[in-house]
């Protein structure tokens, strides 16, 4: 095994110096399992990026994809698939994994020991931020913790000193509530109460009574709009406990203002949504592609961006060795600090390669408006909105 690895990496090194090479990139996502309806679009988007680079004639290497099934839930199966990709197929980078659990397993058990770069398009667990990765792990999707920070930023900007916080008693609600509460406290705010509510109850007046007793400038409802979140807001208005609400992404949808009526006006929040110019371009490219795919399907744009980032980094560093090109990924994604990099949208990968050859700095924006922060994860774009006249009005993107 050790010998083989040595041989492989030696190969990679010598090959990296060589001018042209057939490079295989692994696509490790759950083609079977709970998100199988998304993964066909995700894979098609990633392969579109490779086809685009190959067709441009500007690339030093020819790229091909190797698909592997992560199953999204079975860590052992995902690890085996990743192992096979690297040892049997000799991939130089992995687009994946998809779900946070299997991604963490593959990162620790396969990618780090083998020194392979992973760029996940869809793992959103905050835990991945802190996981050790030898600089090999990136993701084009934002961590769930990001929304908490964005919300805390808006709270502080609006001059809110204290909030009452209630969350849907689910993994999503709990994680988000913890993120909001941690970020807001870190910025000097007070969280008077952080209480769960169960979805699907008829009556939330008791929950609201506890929230009202704790008090606060406004009530943040980290729940679902068709479930307990709506009940909490209704009961709060009925008892006069709170009149303004903070609404994270799970509370955004047309059915909420419809159910609550004008009393919801003045409440505000944020939802993950990109205003990137590249999104529209990629949607059209997806329609024209053969096979056609839906770029608006969740994480498709992130998949295209993940593939593009790996290839551009390889070309920019002139090496397919993960330990070399990994250092280029942040640079490609964000451009130089003075924001002088040329913005690269989907369909402009050929142009990007030309610029790289000419030594001009680029700032890869892609379909999802890529901006990597922290240890290499997407900052994500959030739409800040306020409810006015029963409509979610966009204030700005952040």
């Amino acid at each position, binding site marked *: 095994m050790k010998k083989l690895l040595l041989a492989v990496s030696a190969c990679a090194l010598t090959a990296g110096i060589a001018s042209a090479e057939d490079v295989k990139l692994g696509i490790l996502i759950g083609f079977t399992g709970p998100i199988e309806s998304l993964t066909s679009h995700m894979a098609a988007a990633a392969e579109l990026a490779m086809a685009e680079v190959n067709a441009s004639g500007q690339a030093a290497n020819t790229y091909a994809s190797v698909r592997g099934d992560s199953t999204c839930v079975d860590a052992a199966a995902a690890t085996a698939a990743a192992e096979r990709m690297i040892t049997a197929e000799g991939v130089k980078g992995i687009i994946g994994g998809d779900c946070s659990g299997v991604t963490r397993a593959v990162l620790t058990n396969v990618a780090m020991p083998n020194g392979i770069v992973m760029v996940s398009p869809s793992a959103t667990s905050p835990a991945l931020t802190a996981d050790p990765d030898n600089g090999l792990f990136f993701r084009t999707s934002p961590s769930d913790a990001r929304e908490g920070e964005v919300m805390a930023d808006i709270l502080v900007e609006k001059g809110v000193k204290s909030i009452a916080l209630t969350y849907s008693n689910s993994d999503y609600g709990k994680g988000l509530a913890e993120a909001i509460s941690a970020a807001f406290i870190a910025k000097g705010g007070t969280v008077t109460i952080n*209480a769960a509510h169960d979805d699907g109850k*008829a*009556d939330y*007046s*008791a929950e609201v009574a*506890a929230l009202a*007793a*704790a008090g606060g400038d406004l009530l943040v409802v980290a729940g679902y709009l068709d479930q307990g979140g709506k009940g909490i807001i209704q009961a709060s208005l*009925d*008892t006069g406990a709170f009149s303004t609400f903070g609404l994270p992404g799970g509370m955004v949808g047309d059915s909420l203002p419809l159910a609550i009526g004008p009393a919801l006006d003045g409440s505000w929040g944020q939802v993950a949504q990109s205003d990137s110019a590249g999104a529209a371009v990629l949607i059209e490219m997806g329609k024209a592609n053969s096979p056609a795919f839906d770029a608006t399907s969740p994480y498709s744009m992130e998949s295209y961006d993940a593939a593009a980032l790996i290839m551009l980094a390889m070309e920019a560093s002139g090496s397919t060795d993960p330990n070399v090109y990994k250092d280029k990924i942040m640079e490609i994604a964000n451009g130089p600090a003075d924001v002088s990099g040329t913005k690269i949208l989907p369909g402009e990968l050929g142009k990007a390669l030309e610029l790289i050859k000419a030594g001009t700095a680029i700032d890869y924006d892609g379909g999802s408006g890529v901006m990597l922060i922290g240890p290499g994860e997407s900052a994500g774009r959030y739409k800040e909105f306020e409810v006015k006249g029963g409509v979610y009005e966009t204030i700005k993107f952040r």
Partner: protein
Amino acid sequence: MDILNALVAFSNYILVPGLAYGSQLALGALGVTLVFGVLRFSNFAHGDTMAFGTAFVILFTWWFQSMGITAGPLPTALLALPFGIAVTAAMLLATDRVVYRFYRQQRAKPIILVIVSAGVMFVMNGLVRMIIGTSDKVFTDGARMALNPADFKEWTGLAEPLAIKTTAVVSVVVALISVALLFWFLQKTRTGKSMRAYSDNEDLALLSGINPDKVVAVTWIIAAALATIAGTLYGLDKSFRVFVYFGLLLPIFASAIVGGLGSPLGAIIGGYVIAFSELIVTNAWKKVAGYLAPDSWLGDGLYQALSTDYKVAVSFVILIIVLLFKPTGIFGAK
């Protein structure tokens, strides 16, 4: 002034919701206790009978709304009530004919009837899901608030709001009228008296020429009326979902047992005891206490005995305590 604020906070979060919820429970418990008193078994299907009746009230309400008939500031559902009751009564009489009568003629033991009623419960539960679906149904219309919290603050200048929903007022008033009618019926009319006689001593009642079929039929009709009214009031005040009504069975039985199974007065008292216990135990008292005691006396705590997640557990605990120490309940003799 502070005492006033404390009083208003208490009314807003305990008194008003407690009275409304208590009225709804009391009506439900009355139905259970009536069936127990006359037919001598615990009717587990009562919660789903409530859902069945409410489902039809909702359907009639939607029909009325589509024709433009409303009750002004009151919920249209009140107009639809008699129709819902009629359908539910027909359903219960049919169930009795098909299911319960057979076991009655066998003189089956009460425990067998309880199990049979559990079967009826599952059938009815499925039926309601098929008729109206499993999702949340909103059918409240008319004026939402009888007393708007913002208006109240403006009028009184108090820091604490007091809100009274129209549906809370409707719950209490309709419950009062229903209970008055029921007691008048049981005490004053010939049929009511024959029901009580049948309940007290079946053999003696039969000997004195009371028609048992009529008594049973009237009992089912009254149970249907009470179930439909209780279910509709609960649905108006909170929301309608089949699954929630299934869960209502526990507090309703707790109310009936606390009051004493078979005692109508006990059922009413029991309903309010359960409703207020649930609220008082799970309420965070920090707000009220904050007005009565100086700030420095109170720490950061919410003064909440149990998290609101444990609301249902309160009914359970009361049920167990009553069964352990006074199984006959407050007013029960049997």
